[in-house]
């Protein structure tokens, strides 16, 4: 699913902030990206999502090398093949729960499939809140809608950035289970950037980013 080789990244004119020789995440599998703050966990996720371009090396997602795609094609590829769950499960505040899913479908040029979006909400247990706006939903319901949005286009890969930070143990367990179950159920691989050690119990495989990156960045 993900193949990374000789990856280096540094912001323009700056030092290398991420150096990863090799990493592979097979289809339908899970892994954590862990490491100290500032080591480049989020940067790695953004590179895999095609939001950033590597300085050197290659990233292949679902057989497609991202560096060979034009920016527009990379956006399209991300929308079709990669689901992203952000730290605060940010939903678009002016849209209802269902519309948050529909926008994920139509923004990449697909026809809105209301039935599929509604069924995804129901699969995540929030079907009855389809017409509710985010501010009317509890945090837990917002998390479920955000995960449903990440999965609505049936992506082959889901990237989650710190999905359980700031959550208590109980909520952490719920979100982790939701993410793992939902991605497995839909046959997607899951890569989670986190510093939350509580997730290790559920996702044993870890990619530990070295502290060296931080040192270089500071240098």
């Amino acid at each position, binding site marked *: 699913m993900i193949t990374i080789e000789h990856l280096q990244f540094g912001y323009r004119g700056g030092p290398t902030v991420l150096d990863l020789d090799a990493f592979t995440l097979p289809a339908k599998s899970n892994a954590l990206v862990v490491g100290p703050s500032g080591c480049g966990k*989020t*940067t790695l996720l*953004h590179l895999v*999502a095609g*939001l*950033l371009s590597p300085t050197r090396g290659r990233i292949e997602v679902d057989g497609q090398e991202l560096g060979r795609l034009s*920016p*527009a094609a990379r*956006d*399209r590829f*991300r*929308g*079709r093949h990669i689901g*992203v769950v*952000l*730290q*605060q499960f*940010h939903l*678009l*505040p*002016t*849209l209802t729960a269902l*519309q948050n899913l*529909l*926008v*994920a*479908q*139509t*923004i*990449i040029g697909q026809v*809105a499939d209301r039935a599929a979006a509604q069924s995804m909400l129901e699969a995540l247990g929030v079907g009855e809140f389809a017409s509710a706006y985010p501010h009317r939903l509890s945090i837990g319901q917002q998390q479920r809608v955000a995960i449903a*949005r990440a999965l609505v286009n049936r992506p082959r890969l889901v990237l989650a*950035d*710190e999905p359980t930070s700031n959550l208590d143990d109980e909520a952490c367990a719920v979100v982790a289970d939701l993410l793992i179950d939902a991605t497995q159920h839909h046959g997607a691989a899951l890569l989670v950037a986190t510093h939350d050690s509580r997730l290790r119990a559920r996702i044993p495989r870890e990619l530990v980013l070295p502290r060296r990156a931080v040192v270089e960045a500071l240098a």
Partner: protein
Amino acid sequence: MNFAELAWSYLRARPLGTLLNVLLLALGVGTIGFVLIVDGQVGDSLNRDAKGIDLVVGAKGSPIQLILSGIFHLDVPTGNIPVGAAAELAANPLVKRVIPVSIADSFRGYWILGTTPDYVSLYDGTFAAGSLWHEKMQAVLGAAVAARTQLGVGDRFVGSHGLAEGGPVHGDSVYTVVGVLNPTGTVLDRVALVDPESIWFVHEGAIRDADERKVLEAERQFTALLIQYRSPLAAVTLPRKINAETNLQAASPAYESARLFRIVGVGADVIRAFGGVVLATAALSLFIALYHALNERAYDIAVLRTLGARPSGIAWMLMLEALMLAALGGMLGLALAHGMAALLARWMADQQSLRIDPWAFTAGELWLLVPAFLAAALAALLPSWRAAHADISATLARRN
């Protein structure tokens, strides 16, 4: 759920800001639109009233005043001219028709106009009731006069001297309404027509003997003569001849109306410029709103990008938001322009002035939406560009 719906959802999410921007745009478009509508309508109205009249002949004085009083009845006459002048001009081979008009009295703010039946045919007048006068002290009411005064055939009224209500009343000279005209949209609607003999009769009073009658008849006057040329050649020679060789004044309605419009046009230009300033202010307000929205929505935009939105799509969304405001503001502005024109039309009707149709829409008005769209597009340009080039990764990382 396309970009348009997304843009609309953001507009709905901040109703006050949206309303204020729409109102500002509407005020700009409305002000410019109001001037254009009134300008066009007044122009049309003046043209309708002056249609078929090539020259106005009256007493020496201001030519614009002669036109305003002789044709549009919006000013006091420059003076009076001898009755014999009508016959002399009618005998001129360059003249096709001479229609005398004589005004001195009014009825409830409407002029009582002494003239010939040709005046009715000049404006294609037709009768809603009754017929033309057959003898003196019979009157035919224009449609607006009849509607306003609620008089009909068989009713009687007396005139008062001058135009102001409350002037000296000719209480012993009673007119009888013998006809009511259909609306024509011209000055014909705003006058009470009588035979010139009636005007003279009212002002001459009881005549004691034949000698006095002879003297008074020799002194009879008209206010102005409306002339139709027999040939275009008359336009070159006749006015010059009248102005140079007689005590009369000849004024061309086309020329004087154009001159009047040039004078009034300065005021219209000032109002139009004011509308432009309001529109520019609206654009600035829109720019500020979008610019702030960009900061507030940075994370939303980043989310949309993670969902696969292209930078051009994000820019288009912001541009659509501005264009939607422009469309709303533009349409509301047009409605506002017509609403203000309606108020003016009512006021003008109260003043027995020109008739304008405030609800007459023309396709040309849609051009008024162009400056609104341009202002909106201009305001959205920089925010759109910034949105398209935002560093998504940095935005997402900052939130983390």
